[in-house]
């Protein structure tokens, strides 16, 4: 059950015009493309030899895009790293600048430097996606 939460971190691959989720494994020579329910099976790819359902290995050389996606949002004006939305609420890890005073008032402390909260989606602003181009990195490391 790789994460499918909207606005959560994830990896994606574009293959033959369709965007699929991808599993994260930079140490493998192939990308593992993940077909979710209702998505078309990728043409020309063999199923995962390890037998994982819905998984198809694909070479980075054969995809048109491959990227890591992460999201941030603001709540009460403060910045959060998004863990994704579920049941109309969004979870975030606090990255703001008001610090402990704000965090102690509104959030749950989960570690020495870690605070997080879960908020109604309608209360957050500035939902922003950042994409990291994994295909460009791969091409730099594998020049033709």
């Amino acid at each position: 059950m790789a994460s499918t939460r909207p606005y959560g971190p994830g990896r994606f691959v574009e293959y033959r015009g369709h965007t699929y989720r991808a599993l994260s494994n930079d140490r493998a020579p192939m990308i593992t493309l993940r077909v979710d329910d209702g998505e078309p099976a990728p043409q020309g790819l063999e199923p995962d030899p390890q037998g994982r359902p819905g998984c198809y290995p694909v070479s980075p050389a054969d995809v048109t895009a491959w990227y890591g996606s992460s999201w941030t949002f603001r709540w009460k004006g403060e910045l959060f790293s998004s863990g994704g939305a579920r049941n109309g609420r969004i979870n975030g890890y606090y990255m703001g600048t008001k610090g402990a005073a704000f965090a102690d008032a509104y959030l749950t402390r989960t570690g020495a430097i870690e605070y997080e909260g879960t908020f109604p989606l309608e209360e957050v602003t500035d939902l922003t996606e950042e994409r990291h181009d994994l295909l460009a990195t791969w091409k730099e490391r594998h020049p033709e």
Partner: protein
Amino acid sequence: MTPRLGRDALRDSPGFDTRIDQELSARGLDRAEHDRLRTTPTNDLTDEQIQQVVDVRNTIEISDGQVVTKVLGGDVAKAYMENAEVLPNGRDFDPTQFGGSIARGTDTAGLTTPADLRDALALDDRGAGWSPVPEGASEAYQLRLHAPTDLQAVTTFGAVDDPAAAQHVADLAGVGAGRPWGDPFTGTGYTGGGLPEWDAARSSLPSGSEIWRMTPDGRESCAAYFDGERWIRTHG
């Protein structure tokens, strides 16, 4: 499945002590004094002292693929291993993600007991309840993974409970936003126990991530591994 991230695998590069010694030697600085400075809250340091600390700290980096670690509380470790979406306290959880405070494997390889982790990572919560390793813990759990290419982790520069001072430290360090956290935060980029730490944004866990269980006798065993979609328990 053969565990791949045992203690020996954590030592994939020289540890922070080696780097600090090299940097101090090149700068003609004293190690004992530097150790005192880097474990003192930046609020109590002069600009010159802060500059010395952050300049050395900025030479310690996480490289692509390097093993990074994160201590997990028992309830969080269990939630990962059960692929749960909610923690026992009702808090939302996603077992396919990680984030927050992380340290390099090479810097934690010598921490072999729960007490070692608690001391080096400054996990004494003084009863507040957030510590992943309570005092006298009979076990501790550590998440271990290879740093993904798209890891977003920043050094924990800042100041204790002072947003303006935190930003000043960040400016001296040449980074974006300073962190204004409460005790036991130092703002030097090191834990109160002197270990380099980073603050990671929420990220997808890579395949092959492992959770290790550590006990007071110094033994460790792999408790579970992540296959890219789900956590699988092992016999550890």
